[in-house]
């Protein structure tokens, strides 16, 4: 298993007041994402556990893209990966952010 953590500063907090949300399932080609509103409003942290080693740069790019688009300030995001493709990861991250905005 490989552990990766990325920390970002955001321009604004994610809107809404949902304290936490989960989406997805740990299965082959899929992943689960737990989002928790526990950080300062301009901080976002994404921690990933993946069985597929050596894709740190891809994860870094996917996470950076998500942070730029969603501005998920205040969120600690934890990912259990089952070997998801980058597009699935992006989709789930945005889904998760939407659940937190509800």
């Amino acid at each position, binding site marked *: *298993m490989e552990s990766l953590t990325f920390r970002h500063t955001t321009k604004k907090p994610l809107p809404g007041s*949902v*304290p*936490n*949300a*989960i*989406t997805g*399932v*740990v*299965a082959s080609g*899929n992943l*689960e994402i*737990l989002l*928790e509103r526990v950080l300062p409003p301009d901080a976002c942290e994404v921690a990933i*556990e*993946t*069985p597929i080693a050596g894709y740190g740069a891809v994860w870094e790019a996917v996470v950076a893209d998500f942070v730029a688009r969603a501005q998920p300030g205040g969120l600690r995001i*934890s990912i*259990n*990966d*089952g070997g998801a493709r980058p597009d699935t990861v992006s989709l789930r991250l945005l*889904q998760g952010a939407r*659940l937190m905005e*509800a």
Partner: protein
Amino acid sequence: MAGAHAASTDPDALSWYEATARQRVVALADPGSFREFLPPTERRMSPHLPLFDLPRAFDDGIVVGRAKLDGKTVLVAAQEGRFMGGAFGEIHGAKLVGLLRAALTLKPAAALILFDTGGVRLQEANAGETAIAETMRAIVDVRAAGIPVIGLIGGRAGCYGGGGLIAGTCSRLAVSEGGRISVSGPEVIETNKGAEEFDSRDRALVWRTMGGKHRRLIGGADAFCADSVSAFREAALDLIGRAPAFDLATLEAEQARLESRLARFGDCRDATDVWARLGVNDPDAVPAMDTRAFDETVARVREADHDAR
């Protein structure tokens, strides 16, 4: 302790088979009533899977908590068949055991188990096997206290191995077409006894032998549902109201029921032979029947409702 939010979905439109465990629970319960115990935010994950270099899930593949069903408090457990085949690991099993033991003091209107499992998680086999035994003992204690334990089966992993034994311990079972109940799975039988005994690639054979319709027709399940959350909800409410006591009379009746099944159908080779002997007019038509046609067929079969368990 509020559970993590999950997308809510319309129970009429949501396919039980396609839904995740979390979606099933949220949509099954009265809106907004589900409270999860040991939610994902607590990160109670398997201490064993990392040894096998396998990913973990925040809830170890089972969602447990309290909810309202038609205004009445129920305890609910839902297995996630897509994570490790919904199999029983140490934490997964202990969450179910804890939920059932909690029922003894909480005295809910029912405990619901949403099965979706291949059986024991081999990476934690001894813990899973023991948890299954603990679960069966706990179910018996809960039933003896007058609380119905209702099993709902319609997930993609089916209900196999020790899950099948737990299902057989419940007061009542509802099953859909997609639900399969069995001890040895098709692949297990084929691996051990050969493809002549069971060809696991013959999906029609799998459904006929282990699927929801066969189980309902022979009295192995008490209700047959369409594949929607609302159908399972309706079935659960109905079954809670007619759960058998757990006592000698019930088990004597089950003994007689199962002995008579072996006497009547013990020489049948295929499920269609069983259905013919049950009086089903056109056994070959059963697999393709829709829910209404199948319900009408069930209504004409006596064994289906001779269901002491």
